[in-house]
């Protein structure tokens, strides 16, 4: 994974365990006339990572695809997979929007060459970027790009889970990514969804908005038979997945969290688990007043009398909201919690919101973690829940 906290699993793990917050001044584009000027920026090197990819292929990739490449390559290396016939399922929301922005600006200026504009139109398309990424990773297989706003990454992993579970594939590369871009940043600012201070405080009583971020997270979803046959180290099992649609409003969740409740219940039913068996929830937790109330209500309704035992945090407080990459990156954070036995924190909480009848984790802590649940909710009401567990618990 890559996030504003680090360029690989190790750096991210260290960052979350040290309760670091990686929100900074935006330098990628002009924010001088925006209400807000802060976000979580990842470090992406300008030159191609040595020996991993050709310079020309790296040059053609937009920032988001570079993020995806770095994370996908790390997943393949850690799974010790070098070449495979496995489908690729990727979630994104903004895709290569910065290239689209360039195309727009040059079309307005009217003095760019036809060839250069054609190249922009071609490389703006998400599928073209992902086909280039797959070529660079020697993955010559069908590609599926899911674009369900902020739930895209979680949906991609859920799709992969189903493909493997149904026997249609032994192994799938799945994940999500998004890079910061001007149009989306300005969009969230226009909605007044960004925290004016740039400090996201999910579940704080006086929270005032989210911070955007960028990054990518990828996993290899593989059948137990396939993994055992090749002697692979199993990081965790996917125990359950639920997806549903909140039809309340295009950008606002149902205040009672109806669809969130549906996805948590569906994932638990598939995993054959009751809420008390979940050791940790990585919440969607954007830090906007409406989202956190809806999710908090959903968690209360889902957990019932056990709500006080449920440990919850939002890692968006540290790295920002990664939009199409959020669900995948937060899944990888859950896997870190499972393998390293700690819980990441909701940072910047001064006074928890009254909706927090659950155990809000405000500082990183060591813990016994066997099963984790992660929620992702997006614009348009795209809701998804994934449950991961230690190997052998299903």
């Amino acid at each position, binding site marked *: 994974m890559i996030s504003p906290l680090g360029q690989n699993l190790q750096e991210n793990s260290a960052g979350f365990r040290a309760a670091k917050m990686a929100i900074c001044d935006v330098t990628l584009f002009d924010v001088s006339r925006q209400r807000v000027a802060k976000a979580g920026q990842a470090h992406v090197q300008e030159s191609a990572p040595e020996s991993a990819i050709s310079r020309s292929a790296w040059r053609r990739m937009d920032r988001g695809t570079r993020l995806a490449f770095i994370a996908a390559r790390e997943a393949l290396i850690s799974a010790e997979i070098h070449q495979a016939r496995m489908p690729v399922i990727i979630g994104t929301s903004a895709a290569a929007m910065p290239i689209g922005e360039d195309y*727009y600006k040059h079309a307005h200026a009217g003095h760019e060459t036809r060839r250069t504009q054609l190249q922009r139109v071609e490389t703006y398309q998400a599928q*073209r970027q992902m086909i280039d990424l797959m070529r660079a990773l020697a993955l010559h297989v069908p590609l*599926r790009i899911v674009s*369900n706003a902020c739930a895209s990454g979680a949906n991609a992993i859920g799709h992969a889970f189903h493909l493997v579970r149904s026997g249609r594939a032994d192994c799938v590369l799945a994940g999500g990514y998004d890079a910061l871009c001007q149009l989306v940043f300005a969009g969230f600012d226009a*909605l007044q969804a960004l925290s004016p201070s740039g400090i996201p405080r999910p579940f704080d009583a006086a929270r005032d908005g989210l911070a955007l971020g960028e990054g990518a997270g990828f996993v290899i979803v593989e059948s137990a038979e396939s993994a055992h046959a090749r002697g692979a180290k199993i990081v965790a099992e996917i125990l359950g997945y639920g*997806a549903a649609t909140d039809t309340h409003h295009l950008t606002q969740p149902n205040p009672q969290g109806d669809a969130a409740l549906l996805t948590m219940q569906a994932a638990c039913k598939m995993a054959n688990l009751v809420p008390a068996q979940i050791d940790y929830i990585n919440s969607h937790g954007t830090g906007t007043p409406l989202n956190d109330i809806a999710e908090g209500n959903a968690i209360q309704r889902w957990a019932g009398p056990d709500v006080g035992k449920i440990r919850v945090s939002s890692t968006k407080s540290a790295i920002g909201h990664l939009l199409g990459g959020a669900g995948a990156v937060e899944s990888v954070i859950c896997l870190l919690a499972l393998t390293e036995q700690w819980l990441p924190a909701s940072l910047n909480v001064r006074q928890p919101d009254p909706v927090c009848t659950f155990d809000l984790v405000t500082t990183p802590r060591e813990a016994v973690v066997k099963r984790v649940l992660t929620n992702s909710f997006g614009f348009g009401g795209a809701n998804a829940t994934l449950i991961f567990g230690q190997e052998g618990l299903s």
Partner: protein
Amino acid sequence: MILSITGTGAVSPAGWGVQPMMKMLDSNKEPAISLLERPLHHTTIATPVLRVPSENSTTPKITRLRRTSPISKFAAAAAMEALGEIRLTAIAARELRVGIIFTLINGCVGYSNRFFSEVLSDPKVASPILFPETVFNAPSSHLSAMIGSAAPNDTLIADSTGFFSGMDLAAEWIMRGDVDGCLIVASEELDWLSAEGLQLYSKNYLPSEGAGAIYLEATDDLVKLQHLPDPISFTNRTRTAAAREIRKTLAIGNHVTHLLIDGRAGIHHPDLPETLAWQDWTATRWSPRKILGEAMGASVSWQVIAAVEALRSKRYSQVAVTAVGGNQQAAGCLLGH
């Protein structure tokens, strides 16, 4: 499990509905070309396009669609036609779980254009109403709200073959029992951004717009989904090689009751892979894009709908639908009785 297509809906330059589209395809008569103009400095850039006629719109009059752009309005009209009154009543009564899969390339390019223009002009006054509609899954979200369904709803981005990937995902949901049936929708709208962008590939492209929707369910009906092979990726094959592989996989022979509906637009270079892959095809062949224009993500939906209607007419017993996308994959399916 037998899967059948039991509903179709379309919005195209031929008009609102499947009937006007089929009438235009049958008559081989091309819709009227209009010019999409934008001023640039001291001149005007005019791009010839095929627009959906504004009259006789069948977009449902519901609050959620009031401020949406054409892509959502086209999609809603096509979806309503494909579902029909009986299914809509059953969904409302919670007796039918209908999933939605939306496929596109461009998405809401009109509002993206307007919103980004406002951002560059003065971000402080950029419209908060426009931005949410620019998100890729906004149109599909409106469909779920319109029919009142909390069932899964996924938006897939792909090249113009994405509709086949949508059908594949729908089949997966139905066979797994996640939904009783699935609406697969593709929709695109025109804007100078996308129209000029398309013509950068070839001046001969005629940019078009509209939507297509089919309803797929597990039932033994007249039009069955007989074969839907995995798409062939361009990662390590040329478009021509991928087109040939799809043709081989579909394994349909020349016969008087067989029909091929391909994705050719009438432009030599982009059409060449399909021309070569099917050069020995002597049975009937339709190329809807030659009449309806290049509607990007929506074009394949029209091909599939034309196939369904051809089978319903009983003039044909089996139809191969194929397309070779621009930069992702070649794909196709076999429909038959």
